[in-house]
């Protein structure tokens, strides 16, 4: 307790003794889970794939949790304050169709091929060059992202609680290293499910009390229209033009850039999230898990977007962009969630809210580390460095890679501390790979004529085009009118169109090169491509246990929500 108290100086909130006990209890519990699970991670299948015995609920909640980090919570709450309800698109059209596509179309191929990773699938479908390209880029970017998140977490804890940055970095990194190195993916998944519950328990009170204070949803809309604009509470009606909404985006960017490309790329090919589904115990669980994740994903705006909107209505101060906040000392958009937490939560509740944020940070880091460990061991070390090791040797390598991955992340965090602009570059770099990778994987699964060279060159040139567009706009901001089709486009809108073009480049190159090279035989593609694979049945189960039934329910709710908030 005194350890934490010693690090509190200038800050947004002050933790009481009871709050500190709740935070310390969380650290103790995650370490206890890691120690308990250490004997359950002795084989490669246990350590890297959690024994492939997770139920649909555990895999589904973990799948969702891996993406529900604290930066996500605070960042999107801030975006809701800045852009209004438009930010919800990243939770609905920017996630739900992709999750259902993963469940019903792609998951059977991942599952039947028994691959350990997404690069592993590329090896089976396109050969070693495509795997090496995606594994190296993914591994490199994952540890960098982990470091960036670690620094961001430490910075937030410094601003919100006044904790020393060094203590935050080493405490969280050490805890994650211990529980992942001991229990592997199973330990990470257990803690992600725990985090899911803590986030809801810690943050759900904000919209409940906030709506009470604002006088209900109708009154909230009136207050927001008064303080900002009526467009802040409409999802689609302002998207007919680039200037008709606070984000400066057109509906084509949201539908085709975000809904069809970026979210598809992230939710179906980013191994960080897909790894959780690969740990499911059978094909029905593997299909149900993303559907369960989609169901809960639709509810997340309740604890992320709504607090941002409520902040717009009830907070007495005006929040400003980060760049202005740094100079003036005012609160930035990203502070809206902690500010709302401090507004309604006294001793105990505040501790739980802060625990939810810390849990989000740590499980996000653990997600990066487990994905990196698997890709390094199975897709880089085993095929390229030592292909003759025993299963025990690879598990040992996995444990050491966990520790080394965390240390590299810590190093990156300190690098970012020295050169803040690295943070923007790393976050931008990560997005370069997502859209082309989706193009490569989806063509590989759905088009049997796609060849190894086609997959490799499509991925390489798609990624290169994405980097080129980003660099072009960086050097000449007026290029935005070509890349994002409007000089008024904001950063998020640029990302949408950049993803769309790089996906199209990837697909075009893959098709052209494939048609010019020798195709694989049908027998070589068995179990990897639609039309040449017998997708196993989920069994003779009642309709309410069938994935297609629940996917239909999610689709109906998805449309109802979008129409209601039109």
């Amino acid at each position, binding site marked *: 307790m005194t350890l934490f108290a010693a690090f509190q100086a200038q800050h947004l909130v002050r933790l*009481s003794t*009871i709050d500190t*006990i*709740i935070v310390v*209890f*969380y650290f103790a*519990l995650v370490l206890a*889970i890691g120690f*308990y699970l250490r004997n*359950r991670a002795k084989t490669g299948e246990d350590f890297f794939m959690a024994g492939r015995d997770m139920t649909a609920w*555990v895999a589904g909640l973990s799948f969702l949790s891996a993406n529900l980090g604290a930066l996500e919570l605070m960042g999107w709450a801030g975006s809701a304050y800045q852009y209004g309800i438009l930010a919800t698109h990243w939770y609905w059209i920017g996630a739900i169709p992709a999750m259902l596509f993963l469940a019903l179309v792609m998951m059977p191929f991942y599952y039947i091929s028994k691959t350990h990773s997404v690069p592993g699938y590329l090896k089976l479908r396109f050969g070693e060059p495509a795997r090496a390209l995606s594994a190296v880029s993914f591994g490199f970017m994952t540890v960098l992202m982990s470091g960036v998140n670690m620094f961001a977490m430490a910075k937030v804890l410094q601003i919100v609680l006044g904790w020393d940055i060094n203590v935050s970095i080493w405490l969280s990194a050490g805890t994650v290293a211990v529980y992942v190195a001991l229990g592997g993916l199973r330990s990470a*998944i*257990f803690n992600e*499910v*725990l985090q899911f*519950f*803590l986030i809801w*328990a810690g943050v759900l*009170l904000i919209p409940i*009390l906030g709506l*009470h*204070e604002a006088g209900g949803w109708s009154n909230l809309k009136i207050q927001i229209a008064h303080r900002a604009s009526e467009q802040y509470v409409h999802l689609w009606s302002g998207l007919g033009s680039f200037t008709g909404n606070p984000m400066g985006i057109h509906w084509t960017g949201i539908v085709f850039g975000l809904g069809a490309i970026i979210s598809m790329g992230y939710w179906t090919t980013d191994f960080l999230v897909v790894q959780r589904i690969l740990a499911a115990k059978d094909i029905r669980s593997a299909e149900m898990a993303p559907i369960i994740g989609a169901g809960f994903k639709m509810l997340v705006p309740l604890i992320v977007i709504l607090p941002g909107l409520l902040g717009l209505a009830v907070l007495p101060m005006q929040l400003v962009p980060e760049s202005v906040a740094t100079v003036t000392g005012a609160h930035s958009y990203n502070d809206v969630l902690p500010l709302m937490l*401090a*507004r*309604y*939560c*006294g*001793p*105990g*509740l505040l*501790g*739980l809210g802060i*625990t939810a944020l810390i849990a989000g940070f740590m499980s996000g880091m653990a997600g990066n580390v487990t994905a990196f460990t698997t890709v390094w061991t199975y897709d880089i070390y085993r095929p390229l460095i030592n292909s003759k090791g025993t299963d025990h040797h690879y598990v040992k390598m996995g444990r050491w890679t966990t520790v080394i991955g965390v240390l590299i992340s810590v190093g990156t965090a300190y690098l970012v501390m020295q050169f803040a602009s690295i943070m923007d570059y790393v976050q931008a770099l990560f997005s370069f790979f997502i859209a082309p990778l989706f193009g490569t994987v989806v063509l590989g699964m759905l088009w049997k004529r796609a060849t190894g060279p086609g997959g490799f060159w499509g991925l390489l040139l798609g990624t290169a085009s994405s980097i080129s567009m980003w660099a072009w706009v960086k050097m000449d901001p007026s290029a935005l009118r070509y890349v994002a089709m409007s000089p008024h486009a904001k950063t998020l809108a640029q990302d949408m169109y950049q993803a769309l073009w790089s996906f199209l480049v990837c697909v075009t190159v893959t098709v052209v090169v494939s048609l010019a090279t020798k195709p694989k035989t049908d027998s070589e593609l068995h179990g990897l491509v639609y039309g040449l694979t017998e997708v196993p049945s989920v069994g003779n189960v009642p309709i309410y246990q069938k994935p297609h039934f629940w996917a239909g329910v999610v689709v109906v709710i998805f449309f109802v929500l979008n129409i209601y908030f039109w």
Partner: protein
Amino acid sequence: MVSIWFFIGIALLVDGVLIFGAGMYELWHPPAHPVVLFSLHAPIWWGGLLAVIGAIYCLKFKPKHS
């Protein structure tokens, strides 16, 4: 193996009891600078709810000795 739901039950039960206790303490010793909507005494009913859910999870998923 101990179920993940048991660990979640422990977390909710302990946190719920601590928050409920803090809420009861505040009932008898109101703070000098209360939070907004303090009159609703959220820690009492929210902490109580978490504790009840946690207790149910702990009982339903408690480890069984074979």
